[in-house]
């Protein structure tokens, strides 16, 4: 979706459920589409409005200050970055026309497009990038995204349209960090405290849409920016309607008040197959950039032994979880990457459901049912553990229940405990006082996973909370982030996945599908690995199908 570079690495699957839509199955070749359109007289036309339903309300429209996905979704339409991801996850220019990376990988020089204007008519220049960079590293800016920019040793503006940064060490995620987080209009904000004042609720950007009106708790209305540098967006108005309840949202979709929303698995699989939906809507389906896993506390005596973790993996049927929990709308996960993206290694060890093998491995590890109560034991300790997960997350709760049932069959007794999010993280995960936990990671578009797996990241509040420690993995992670050469990176991450699949610090459970639905009158939607909304400015409604006429 529109340049979420901020979330490049991986951000917690927060409670906030974003209905934004990510990417998809292969789109039709453009030529075919055009032929069909010409026959129907459905050529692209300006006009109409797209109304999207969203659970959460944005809190602020300055990307570097926003912590929630709703804010990023809306501000992503208002601000652009220097670079962005193409549909195949390669990096392409956005406000930057091109860039050079010095051969040692330390200096990046961006050459900006000329003549781009902020929505108030002032020209965008390298000074705006410099200003944004200075703001994000300012101690007084309450941002969560400054770390990438603190790696910068020197930033300069050699001329009006050139921006150059120098790093201490080569840092692969550096290039894409220059997304939409750091471009701010200097002429409007210089000398002001961006946390005060109303820029955050009334921003001036240079993206395809600009804010028209924000009605608290109800909707955010954006109008197309006619002088957008990639061409005026076809759809004149984009309305982000806040509907906090997903059941209500689905009803509202049927009344025609909204045109687009993210469907839940049950809505996609069971409730939208009627003639009504087939006639009026188009559904999309593609893997979301997130995965759900069961983490083991590797410090716990039960889980120190690799054979035990492998046994549990053999004792769980991932296909069954996908079928039952997600109505088949997902795929079993084999590692921390999304299938069909460049870092994904399809050839790692997979654990087909095999309870016999599981029992065998447990036996080798010394677990036997000596007292005949149906639960394995070792040194008089029965094999009982608790899976923690966060409250009000049905897919995770159901996954836990299936795992509980399956593991009982191989002699392991599992308890499930659901906790309020903050309590769960602060008291259990951060303090390492858990045995196993079901959680999810959002997967960033960059492949770097240093913070999750590196053995130096095991302190309280850090993200290697399972206390995983493998020198080879440490080395691979370091290698992967210190080069821009995609083949070298790929090699490192492929090996990383092999090791993870063998050692199983997590059991990777599933990658759910994103399942957005859009009204049938919108044309030009092309699903791609990064979603459907990346080309939102190119969506259109043929003249004869337009529903809303807009008064200015």
């Amino acid at each position, binding site marked *: 979706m529109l340049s979420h570079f901020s979330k490049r690495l991986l951000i917690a699957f*927060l409670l906030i459920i974003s209905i934004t839509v990510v990417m998809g199955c292969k789109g039709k070749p453009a030529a075919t589409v055009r032929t069909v359109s010409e026959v129907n007289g459905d050529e692209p036309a300006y006009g109409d409005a797209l109304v999207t339903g969203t659970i959460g309300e944005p809190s602020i429209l300055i990307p570097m200050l926003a912590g929630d996905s709703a804010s990023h979704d809306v501000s992503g339409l208002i601000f652009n970055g220097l670079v962005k991801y193409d549909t195949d996850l390669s990096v392409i220019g956005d406000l930057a026309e091109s860039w050079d990376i010095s051969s040692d990988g330390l200096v990046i020089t961006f050459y900006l497009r000329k003549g781009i204007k902020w929505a108030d008519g002032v020209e965008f220049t390298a000074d705006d990038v410099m200003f944004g960079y200075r703001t994000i590293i300012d101690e007084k800016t309450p941002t969560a995204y400054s770390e990438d920019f603190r790696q910068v040793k020197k930033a300069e503006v050699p001329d009006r349209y050139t921006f150059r940064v120098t790093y201490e060490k080569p840092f692969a995620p550096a290039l894409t960090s220059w997304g939409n987080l750091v471009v701010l209009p200097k002429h409007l904000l210089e000398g002001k405290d961006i946390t005060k004042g109303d820029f955050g609720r009334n921003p001036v950007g240079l993206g395809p849409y600009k804010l028209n009106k924000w*009605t608290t708790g109800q909707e955010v209305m954006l109008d197309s920016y006619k002088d957008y540098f990639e061409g005026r967006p076809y759809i004149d108005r984009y309305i982000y309607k806040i509907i906090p309840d997903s059941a209500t949202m689905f009803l509202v979709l049927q009344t025609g008040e909204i045109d687009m929303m993210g469907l839940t698995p049950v809505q996609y699989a069971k409730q939208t197959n009627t003639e009504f939906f087939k006639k009026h809507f188009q559904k999309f389906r593609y893997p979301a950039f997130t995965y759900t896993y069961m983490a083991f506390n590797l410090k716990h005596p039960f889980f120190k032994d690799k054979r035990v973790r492998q046994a549990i993996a053999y004792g769980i049927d991932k296909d069954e979880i996908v079928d039952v929990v997600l109505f088949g709308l997902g795929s079993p996960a084999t590692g921390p990457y999304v299938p069909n993206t460049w870092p994904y290694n399809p050839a790692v060890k997979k654990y087909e459901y095999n309870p016999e093998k599981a029992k065998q491995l447990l036996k080798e590890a010394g677990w036997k049912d000596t007292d005949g109560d149906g639960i394995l034991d070792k040194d008089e300790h029965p094999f009982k553990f608790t899976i923690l997960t966060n409250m009000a997350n049905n897919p995770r709760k159901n996954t836990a229940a299936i795992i509980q049932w399956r593991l009982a069959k191989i002699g392991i007794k599992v308890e499930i405990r659901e906790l309020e999010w903050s309590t769960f993280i602060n008291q259990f995960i951060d303090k390492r006082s858990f045995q196993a936990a079901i959680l999810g990671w959002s997967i960033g578009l960059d492949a770097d996973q240093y913070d999750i797996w590196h053995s130096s990241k095991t302190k309280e509040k850090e993200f290697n909370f399972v206390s995983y420690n493998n020198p080879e993995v440490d080395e691979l992670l370091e290698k992967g982030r210190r080069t821009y050469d995609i083949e070298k990176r790929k090699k490192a991450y492929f090996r990383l996945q092999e090791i993870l699949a063998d050692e199983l610090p997590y059991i990777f459970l599933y990658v759910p599908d994103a399942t957005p639905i859009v009204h049938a009158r919108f044309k030009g939607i092309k699903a791609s690995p990064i979603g459907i909304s990346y080309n939102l400015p190119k969506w259109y409604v043929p003249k004869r199908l337009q529903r809303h006429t807009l008064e200015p």
Partner: protein
Amino acid sequence: MLTYLVKRLLEMIPTLFGITLLSFVIIHLAPGKPTDIFTELNPKITPEARERLEKLYNLDKPIIVQYGLWLGKIVKLDFGESFSSDRRPVMQRIWDPKKPLLERRLFVTFMINLISMVIIFLIAIPVGISSATRRNTLYDKITTTTVFIGFAIPHFWLALLLMLLFGVTLHWLPISGLTSMNYASLPFWGKIWDLAKHLVLPIFVSAFGGLAADSRYMRSSMLEVIRQDYVTVARAKGLPEREVIYRHAFRNALLPMITLVGLSVPGLIGGSVIFENIFGIPGMGQLFFQSVMTRDYPMVMGVLTIGAILTLLGNLLADIGYMLADPRIRAR
């Protein structure tokens, strides 16, 4: 009377102080911090970055110092700034004088609760009286059952069923939000009509659920009164039953309702989060819920303090109302 009022108002100050201190400590005892939305499981956050954020919000100071800072502002009637990422003042998020009324959360909640409260009283009082006077008849049993169904039925479920019927199947009513997309371009009466259509379902659902308590109070209060000697006297005088009930018994039976109204005052600004979420109503319930979930301390404290003040004022109003209505209490 005046001394009494002054005394009561002065008594409110230590009570309020106690309430805020307790609320402050309790909300800070809950695990988690306002900065969690940025830092929790966000691999991009280093310990230094977390400390910087916590320092910005004064979270590194001992809790009693934080309370002192908060109290120092509150005595100047400054509720501080919300910790949410837009850092707007707390009062602006509750009641933004620059926005139209319908975009002020306090107004929206207050309006819906007031309308539904009036409707509840308008229905509950006659229902209570009539079922008291027809005690144990079929009518009494039917009304009792009906109001209890309203009380027991899960609100969200009833709401969804009604939305499905009136919104999706019949297309009579809109089902989410307060206004339609073209609201701004409507003439005055068009706006009222649009708003009314949006409010029918929420108000019906909330009123239906609230009928039970008030009609039951009214019924039992009426039952007590019609057992009194003066009612027997009135009947003995040969007054028609209508007059006995509505002129003599009714007034006295209404007295407990004054307490009820007083107690409802703080409820007028408190919204239910489930209810508001289902109908997409931007009210106080949502705001408070989000603030608690994100540990937005100034926001939580702001709402709680206003609630506490209204509760105390409501109690005071109920007492004054009682004094005005009942000479026996005034005499003391």
